[in-house]
């Protein structure tokens, strides 16, 4: 553990405030979409999310009931209704032309083109009075300026979550992610141990080659590999995508794990060798437990990478109902609802919830591993 700084309270303050600032900066973007995703979609489109708690001013357009519904009252034909149509709000002004939505103050009379007199109250009730029976036709447009209380809703999430097939995609993503995380860790751990602690010719060269492979652009390998899959007969299947993620994740896994394992104290391994333990035993009984923090870290990274991947999944899995993963499903949502911030924000948030939960769950082990004090610089 690091040294306490209790002797200098001023410094402790500086540290705390700096961390608060840093955390604020880093969480602000996510907070923005979290708040936005809970807001009413009409408010979301016109005011910043940081104003979510204040009342917002907005111009609305409502349509009155059609003139033929006017009823005779005290010698006039009267139409009544409410501009909010079931919602609530406060009217500050109204108008009869789209250009001047608040030309008239609440309670004033405005003369319509067809001769009616329109008035709107603060609570949104409107009255249109005609002296003669009006021509049947379409209802009049009523423009109102309103002050709306802040509105929050879970509707956006309901739209996203209950859209068709999300559950199925969730299972698909799970099916892809778990083996695609575990398999490379297993394979890489053995390889990393061999590269770190076993003597064999060409070790350095092999390591160099693996580091070099870190930069192979993924896009380059898609077509040759899919072609290979089709020749072998795997085609687009889960086994194909597991192996693909394994292949693409291996260089980083081997690189990170080898660096970590190479930093483990030599004495432990030497003494185990002297005691007659085989490499297989040393690996299983000493290296693997000691490397737990590194394994956990890589597991987190690989999990996040696979979970969030879209490119590999679209290539090696089909786009059909049986194989579509979560990111693909969300992309569909984005594509068909591109202009709707409420769908975008809610779906983006749905997509990040599971990885964040996994991180928090694994983090305990990560920290426990770290506290064992077995970490040394690469």
């Amino acid at each position: 553990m690091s040294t306490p700084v209790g002797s200098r309270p001023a410094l402790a303050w500086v540290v705390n405030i700096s961390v608060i600032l840093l955390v604020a900066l880093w969480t602000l973007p996510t907070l923005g979409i979290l708040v936005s995703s809970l807001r009413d979609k009409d408010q979301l489109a016109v005011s910043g999310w940081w104003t979510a708690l204040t009342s917002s001013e907005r111009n609305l357009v409502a349509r009155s009931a059609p003139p033929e519904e006017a009823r005779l009252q005290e010698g006039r034909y009267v139409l009544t209704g409410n501009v909010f149509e079931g919602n609530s709000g406060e009217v500050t002004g109204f108008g009869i032309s789209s250009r001047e939505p608040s030309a008239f103050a609440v309670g004033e009379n405005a003369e319509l083109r067809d001769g009616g007199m329109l008035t709107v109250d603060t609570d949104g009730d409107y009255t249109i009075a005609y002296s003669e029976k009006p021509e049947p036709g379409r209802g009049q447009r009523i423009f109102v300026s309103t002050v709306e209380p802040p509105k929050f809703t879970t509707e956006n999430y309901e739209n996203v979550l209950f859209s068709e097939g999300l559950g199925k995609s969730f299972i698909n993503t799970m099916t892809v992610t778990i083996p695609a995380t575990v398999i490379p860790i297993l394979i890489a751990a053995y390889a990393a141990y061999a590269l770190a602690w076993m003597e064999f010719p060409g070790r350095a060269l092999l390591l160099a080659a693996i580091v070099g492979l870190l930069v192979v652009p993924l896009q380059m390998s898609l077509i040759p590999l899919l072609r290979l899959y089709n020749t072998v007969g795997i085609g687009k299947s889960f086994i194909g995508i597991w192996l693909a993620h394994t292949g693409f994740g291996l260089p980083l896994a081997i690189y990170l794990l080898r660096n970590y394992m190479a930093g483990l104290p030599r004495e432990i391994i030497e003494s185990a060798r002297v005691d007659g333990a085989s490499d297989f035993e040393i690996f299983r009984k000493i290296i693997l437990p000691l490397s737990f923090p590194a394994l956990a870290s890589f597991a987190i990274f690989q999990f996040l990478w696979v979970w969030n991947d879209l490119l590999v999944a679209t290539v090696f899995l089909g786009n059909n109902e049986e194989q579509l993963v979560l990111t693909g499903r969300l992309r569909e949502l984005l594509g068909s609802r591109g202009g709707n911030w409420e769908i975008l924000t809610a779906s983006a948030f749905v997509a990040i919830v599971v990885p964040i939960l996994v991180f928090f769950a694994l983090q305990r082990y990560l920290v426990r591993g770290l506290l064992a004090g077995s970490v040394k610089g690469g």
Partner: protein
Amino acid sequence: MAISSTETGPSDGSPGLGAFFRNLVIALGIMAAGIVFAVLCAVAVFSALNTVLPDIKLVQAVLVMVLGVAACFGYFWGSNRLLDMIYPPRGHRVAENINAANGIRPWLFLGPAVIILGIYLVYPVVNSIVLSFYGPSGEHWVGGANYAWLAKDAAFRESMRNNLLWLVVVPAAATFFGLIAAALTDRISWGNVAKSLIFMPMAISFVGASVIWKFIYDYRAEGSEQIGILNAVVTFFGGEPQAWITLPFWNNFFLMVILIWIQTGFAMVILSAALRGIPEETIEAAVIDGASPFQIFYKIKVPQIWGTIAVVWTTITILVLKVFDIVLAMTNGQWGSQVLANYMFDWMFRGLDFGRASTIALVIMAMVTPIMIWNIREARKDMK
């Protein structure tokens, strides 16, 4: 696969060439046997379970998952048993057997990794090198024409410039912020909470991150209310709202911020682990000597974790070279923000020219050569 046959250089204390090949053959034999064993296990378990379990999608999926993992375990366990059976580490030839087994075992451990790397990465690279000398559909040999075209292409120069910017700014900024965050959060009681929050962007997909940042950079015409926070801040201080991601040159930095935002968490987690691994004694000694916390940090802690900083830097650098999703989603390389990986994608799927796309891919790989050389040096140093 291709690699193992080229690893012929004898090194200190290793057996001769003949022994090496003999080991290799045995290793391959055992590997094959191991794989067969693993598959047999998997199939046996599968058919046994399949008759018992009901035909539900989720159950089947879990089953297949277990099988994949079991096959892996099966291979490592099985191949090791086999090796021990061939060269039992007991009896009258203990020493020889152990030696022989030790020559083979590394290859058993490395085998699956080497095979998978060979198929998934080496083969495509070789394929790219070949394709870079061919025309659009990979049928006509064009010699160095693709390279000549690249040298003269303006968009390529722009991508190079941007990529170099990314290479300098992003790893430096992410490592720097990561180090600061690691050092600071280790000193406070709610450090783990803070860490989790800073790490959180790592958990967000690029698709998600693009949505989040589009929301930040959102631009509404002057006069109407801004819903992007950056423009809201700018207008609050009396500035003019800007369409940030369309400002040539500067938009590169706005895109980089996204990746820095994501990668700082990675740097922080790794560096924090390294910082905690520094032996207490060195720090206590410094404290007793009256060193200030800043001096301790820069003069004692940072040098000790220099190796880890390098690893973090390398990893982020490599990620930057491949950065593609962010640019594709935010600007698609327009407004002068093109980068190599996206430019390659562009030629591959929009230009349908695999020759040129491969050539650009090779440039990306070539750019990492310095990092590779440095890493080989480090690896050699370690092994001495």
